[in-house]
């Protein structure tokens, strides 16, 4: 049975649904995911935890259709991702913001340009971009740093730029793959608090992480993977799973 979500009192809308999903990479004998079934509802904040190689990144890549499930069904916002033709993949990805451990900013563009880029490539009007980019930068706490280049920023600030870029198009889902992996504990907590704020605007957040401190402090739903299996899925969970059990 899927766990009760925080929004269980409303009509739950499933944003992400995995039905018995397995993934075996070519040239690899060991499956990355085996028989994973889970649901993430609208507005949830979910941590995906597990050691390296447990399948966290694969899970996120399946949502983005960067990878194709070997067996099973992946549904995102009610759409079956596996059967989605390639030309419709961009539309899926517009509904999903993504943040990575290594920020992936464009080094020769300013903070403002990095965030605006995400809208420019979607063909948004200049007027709309001028409106929404400063708002987003304000929200992530980068007001006044619009003209800086990425290398002039601290790691935490760079990750804020990346979050602003992921969020500027107001996606329904935000995926974060170890977003605090390169940051010190205090900065990490700031970043996760920012994600929490974004979550409160109604954006569903799935964050893969190793960071036990953060997981233990936020007390959100925790899905734990080990060797490609879901071994734990609980609300208000902690990293190791010891205290909640």
């Amino acid at each position: 049975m899927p766990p009760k979500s925080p929004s269980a009192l409303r009509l739950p809308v499933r944003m992400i649904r995995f039905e018995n999903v397995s993934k075996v990479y070519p040239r690899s004998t060991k499956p990355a995911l085996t028989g994973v079934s889970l649901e993430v509802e609208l507005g949830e904040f979910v941590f995906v935890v597990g050691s390296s190689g447990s399948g966290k990144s694969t899970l996120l890549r399946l949502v983005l259709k960067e990878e194709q499930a070997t067996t099973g069904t992946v549904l995102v916002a009610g759409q079956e991702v596996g059967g989605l033709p390639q030309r419709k993949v961009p539309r899926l990805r517009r509904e999903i913001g993504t943040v990575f451990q290594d920020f992936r900013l464009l080094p020769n563009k300013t903070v403002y340009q990095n965030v605006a880029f995400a809208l420019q490539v979607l063909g948004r009007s200049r007027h709309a971009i001028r409106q929404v980019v400063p708002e987003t930068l304000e929200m992530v706490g980068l007001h006044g740093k619009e003209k800086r280049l990425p290398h002039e920023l601290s790691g935490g600030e760079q990750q804020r730029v990346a979050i602003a870029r992921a969020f500027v198009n107001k996606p329904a889902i935000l995926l974060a793959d170890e977003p605090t992996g390169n940051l010190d504990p205090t900065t990490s907590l700031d970043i996760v608090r920012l994600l929490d704020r974004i979550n409160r605007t109604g954006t569903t957040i799935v964050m893969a992480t190793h960071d036990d401190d953060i997981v233990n402090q936020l007390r959100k739903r925790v899905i734990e993977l080990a060797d490609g299996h879901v071994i734990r899925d609980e609300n208000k969970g902690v990293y190791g799973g010891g205290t909640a059990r």
Partner: protein
Amino acid sequence: MRLQFMLSEIWIGLRRNASIAISVVLVTMVSMYLLGLGILAQRQVDTFKGYWYDRVQVTIFLCTADSGEPDCGKKAVTEEQKQAIRSQLQQMKPLVKQVYYESEQEAYDRFQEQFRNSPLAGNIRVGDIPQNFRVQLSDPTKYDVVVSSFEGAPGVGRVQDQQKTLDKLFKVMNVITIASFALAALMVLCAVLLMATTIRQAAFSRRRETGIMKLVGASNFTIRFPFVMETVLAAVAGVGLSVVFLWATVRWGIPYVAKVFPDLALIGVSDVWVITPWLAGLIVVVAMGTSWVTLWRYLRV
């Protein structure tokens, strides 16, 4: 504005890859120059043909008293023989479209006029060129019929088929055409390979940008369009240069040919303008096709 953004992306891409963009321009230029040269040579052949087919194809030279032709036997043509040839030619209508008679004086005058710039003109006297019938055919390819029926006829010294003389020239022109087409094909192949390499390199050096574009859900068109446009722009620049060189070749080369062959109809600068859209169209298609295939191969979404 979406267009402005795209244009700035294309400009950045070209600037960042300037040296390799220039090499695409140059290779395209050489390939299109050679192809253009081949097409122009072929147009020159067609111009010759058209020119000559409008004029005399077969000349029947009549005997003179001091003719060197063995068929004459040192006897000048008689008035009866002339009449017989004329009426035989009349009977060959409609293949024979028109017959012009040229007296020795007329033949001499025409020669003087034609080769007025040549030292040859001074060495020729009236009577050196025999009186002749110049025959125009309705179907120039059937000159054989006329040649065979008059060769060796009484009073006929020699039947000269202009086509045979011209064929030699056409052969030379055809060799030029084939050679330049073959070289052009090689150069187009080089251009295609170079374009493909260029795009691979550009795709690699911009993988960060394209990666983010994919991630935020930019359409395939948005991701690929700048790459395609960069290649097309470089190729079009190459065609532009090749047209300049073709123009220069015709502008300054043809007057030189005209001096050597004063009697020939020659192509002109307007022929360059006629083939320009074809060269440009071809290279745009090649550039777009190559970049699309390369991007499909190396820029998977």
